[in-house]
């Protein structure tokens, strides 16, 4: 009974569970997809899960540092997307495809 009552009393842990689920979906998506653009989107999902955890801790501790950390994650995500998509465009020019299986020049 207390478990059911605790389930509907939204606490910090609820947000952590959602963050964990979202991170896992992103990680599995990164592993199973072959389109590099969709792989980048899965990385964004993982970064978002971390952002959710940062904000949840920020609320739990009443500390502005967690929300400040979200800004740094955002900046890193923006830089990653800019450079990553430039790499994808450069690869597409040479190979006419963005599938990760095609990019195997380093394979022995």
């Amino acid at each position: 009974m207390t478990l059911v009552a605790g389930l509907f009393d939204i606490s910090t842990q609820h947000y952590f569970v959602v963050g964990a689920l979202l991170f896992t979906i992103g990680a599995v998506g990164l592993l199973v997809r072959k389109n590099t653009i969709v792989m980048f989107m899965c990385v964004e999902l993982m970064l978002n899960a971390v952002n959710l955890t940062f904000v949840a801790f920020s609320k739990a501790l009443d500390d502005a540092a967690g929300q400040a950390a979200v800004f740094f994650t955002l900046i890193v995500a923006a830089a990653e997307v800019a450079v990553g998509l430039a790499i994808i465009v450069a690869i597409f020019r040479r190979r006419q495809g963005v599938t990760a299986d095609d990019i195997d020049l380093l394979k022995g």
Partner: protein
Amino acid sequence: MDAILFFGFSAILLSAAIGVVIARNPVHSALFLVTTMVTMSVFFLMQDAPLVAIVQIVVYASAIVVLFLFVIMLLGVDRHESLDDGRRFQRPAAAILGVLALAGLLSLTVGHWQLGGHRLSGRSISDNGDNVRPLARTLFTHFAWPFEVTAVLLVIAVVGSVVLARRSSRPAPNPDAANPLQQGSAR
């Protein structure tokens, strides 16, 4: 009321995230990504982080996803993609790794833990209901050095993407002629 909002938006968030992974068309993936970003900003609002919620919509749902869509349309890869797996072990391995990662994260979350009374920035997230002022003071005092480092990172990213995406004046060599030892077909 809180529980209804939380579980409703959790369902939207997680199903949209699954949609990003299983959509065959990259454009659909990008649109599912917008859904997850907007839902995430609702979560930020529910956790007393209005500025982060707004920045999430402005930067993520607008700028980053538009960049994704722009590249998808530029390259013309907005066709349906086969989800069939060429390598048989890849999908079971991903499932096993996903279950392991989820078990680890959930055991950390649901297990016994407690928060210390320690504040890193020494500032509350709300200064008489104002979220922007404590956040700005934290960023420009306590995190001033990381903030400058991110400025350098952004400059490097801009220069790097310009260098990478620039069309070379020399004709690109034929990729197949350049590596005669390559195994298998490119497509």
